[in-house]
């Protein structure tokens, strides 16, 4: 598995699978955001990943890194909100870290994603435990050492583990204790990101 070499087409398939998952789950994500946020996370990501799909179809980049940089830039330019810059930075930084290699192995992807996740924490001044997307992203990247399926599972578990947390960052933090008992929408969409990765890798 650590011998896997992933090409640009794989990354395009990944982003396309994320777009499909977000389409499917948009209402659910908005529902989650409506409980402890402002009821737009689903439509935000739907708008963003639809634009990503269009951008990648129009001019498919030649390298894995370029695919993610394009995806990240597109998210920044079309999503807005907190998740636009954060998800955008995640993908852009991951892509930049991958450089212009034509193919990347699992270890390189993990290093890239680690850099991306660190950039998210830096941009958002946030850390795992704050009840944000980091609670899914961080364990997922760690579990990537055990393969795509393990990463997807860790992301899902991380997202579900946000339910009992009190939010310290983002809009949900305004609710104080009332944020407890709800799953973080950004963690839930991060789990979709890794589920899609596992799906296209299968």
């Amino acid at each position, binding site marked *: 598995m650590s011998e896997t070499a992933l090409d640009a087409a794989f990354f395009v398939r990944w982003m396309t699978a994320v777009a499909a998952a977000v389409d499917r789950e948009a209402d659910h994500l*908005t529902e989650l955001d*409506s*409980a*402890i*946020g*402002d*009821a*737009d996370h*689903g*439509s*935000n990501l739907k*708008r963003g990943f639809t634009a990503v799909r269009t951008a990648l179809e129009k001019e498919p980049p030649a390298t894995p890194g370029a695919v993610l940089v394009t995806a990240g830039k597109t998210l*920044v*330019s*079309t*999503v*807005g*909100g*907190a*998740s*636009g*810059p*954060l998800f955008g930075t995640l993908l852009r930084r991951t892509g930049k870290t991958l450089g212009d290699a034509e193919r990347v192995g699992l270890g390189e992807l993990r290093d890239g994603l680690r850099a991306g996740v660190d950039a998210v924490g830096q*941009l*958002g001044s946030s850390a795992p435990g704050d009840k944000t997307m980091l609670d899914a992203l961080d364990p997922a990247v760690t579990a990537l050492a055990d393969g795509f399926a393990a990463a997807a599972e860790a992301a899902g578990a991380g997202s579900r583990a946000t339910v009992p947390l009190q939010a*310290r*960052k*983002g*809009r949900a*933090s*305004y*609710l*104080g204790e*009332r944020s407890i008992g709800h799953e973080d929408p950004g963690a839930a969409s991060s789990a979709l990101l890794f589920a899609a990765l596992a799906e296209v890798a299968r």
Partner: protein
Amino acid sequence: MLINVAETVVADALRGMAVAHPELVVDVENRVVVRRDAPVAGKVALISGGGSGHEPLHGGFVGPGMLDAACPGEVFTSPVPDQMVRAAAAVDSGAGVLFLVKNYTGDVLNFRMAAELAEDEGVTVASVLVDDDVAVTDSTFTAGRRGTGATLFVEKIAGAAAEEGAPLERVEAVARQVVGASRSFGVALAACTTPAKGSPTFDLPSGQLELGVGIHGEPGRERRAMMTSREIAEVTVDAVVDDLRPELPVLVLVNGAGATPLLELYGFAAEVHRRLADREVAVARTLVGDYVTSLDMAGASVTLCQVDDELLRLWDAPVQTAGLRWGR
């Protein structure tokens, strides 16, 4: 809802602004609203923006004496950096640009990215965060106080300073002074319905109200049994006054959330004044109306800004926008 489809709500509204306000340049495609005479030579340019759904904020505050440009995002979603970069290019006269940013993670991040990109293109950018909502504890365990009603005070007063020709550092300092002198607190009597969701963002049984709500349809800090206008004014004014402890006369904004009738809002304003008198706070000016709304949310907020003679003079200075207009 009086809409076509959720996806086109913001673009449709911008087309409407364009036909109603020939004094504005409305770029529907790129979502930028600019005063027609921009860039005004030698003048510091003010740019604000944020999620849509708070109208007349911000597009309704573009014009002489207030903003040079506004960048509307999707409903309750902060705009993307491209919008602010484009706006900065359209309004910068060389005297620099001031970004007025409501303190939400999304707004902060998108405006920060925009500032970096605009500076890459040679524009001098300063930014001021508005964070006036005392319902939110300002600690390292939150994203900090939200920006709400004080945005109007900041845009108006800093806008007047810019219109008079003050340099960027001065306009920025005035904006910071207004932020520091302003506090808000809001209540909701019914939640709002966003076009994307199509149903109320939270469930508030009639006979109950939410204290300490923000302007994005999020629930507040506490749910209570319905209170009278007088009782709500007491809770609201006390929350603001206890935090601000004003020593100077205040500007008072009694702001409607969207669906509360102006008739009720005026009645509430009377109770707010009554409570301010109880608390021995002197009132310099009072503004009553729907200025920083949350779509069709029912409820109201109170913002106080304590002002010295100079801030009061800038508040009274002429303003010519769709949403706020006096003098000249």
